[in-house]
């Protein structure tokens, strides 16, 4: 479902992008060119989970389990209207209306979809702020 991206290529910060729907095209486009794809989180790395796309009800448990597996200190980003609050489908019983229904969320990025730069800039601020940025 997702890849583990060594965003700056130095093992300092990894992004786990849970690509669920159309927003994932934009979040993928934000990834720095040549950023290594890892199979596991390196020791000591800051972990950022990005939820990009609609959370369909049948995958809700999978999404929650995966985020939980990344540890309590994971910085969770809801990327796009669907991940923030359910987007155009907010009143549908087939979806979960927002990542906040499943886990803690540290940062919400609006848009349907948002521009890739919104994610790239946030990840850079996280690195610069030592993870203290919301």
């Amino acid at each position, binding site marked *: 479902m997702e890849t583990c991206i060594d965003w700056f290529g130095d093992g300092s910060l990894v992004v786990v992008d849970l690509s669920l729907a159309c927003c994932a095209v934009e979040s993928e*486009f*934000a*990834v*720095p*060119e040549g950023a290594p794809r890892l199979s596991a989180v390196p020791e000591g790395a800051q972990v950022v989970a990005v939820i990009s796309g609609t959370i369909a009800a049948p995958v809700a448990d999978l999404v929650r389990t995966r985020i939980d597996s990344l540890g309590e200190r994971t910085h969770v980003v809801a990327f796009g*209207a669907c991940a*923030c*609050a*359910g*987007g*155009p489908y*907010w009143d549908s019983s087939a979806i979960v209306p*927002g990542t*906040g229904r499943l886990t803690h*969320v*540290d*940062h*919400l*990025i*609006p*848009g*349907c979809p*948002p*521009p*890739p*730069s*919104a994610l*790239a*800039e*946030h990840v*850079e601020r996280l690195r610069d702020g030592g993870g203290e940025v*919301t």
Partner: protein
Amino acid sequence: MNNDDRTTPGAPTPDAATGHGSIRLIEERCTSCMICVRECPTWCITIEAHSEVLPDEQGHHPSRQRVRTVHVLDEFTIDWALCMYCGICIEECPFDALEWAGPHVLGAADLVGLVHDRHALAEAGSR
């Protein structure tokens, strides 16, 4: 590291290309008619307004039994956590009180932070 420019050197970013980053409310044009609220596909606009009787003879005229009132806007919000940037509100507003403006709405730490009030919307694009 902004990879929006990975395509063609010098190509505009998506924001700049579409100009659809945020929506500005031009309050003095808004009549609180609620058309945008009803047309928005995601119901992410809210309006609060009250009626006021027009001053003097405009409101109370001896030739009319009924008083004439006008809607006065009290609050106007857009919930950016739900907005799909479709522009229907802008298209449908009969008074051109909404327009595309400025860079993409900034992210926030919680859902409340993505609800922009009339003051924030009036300033969209000027930051």
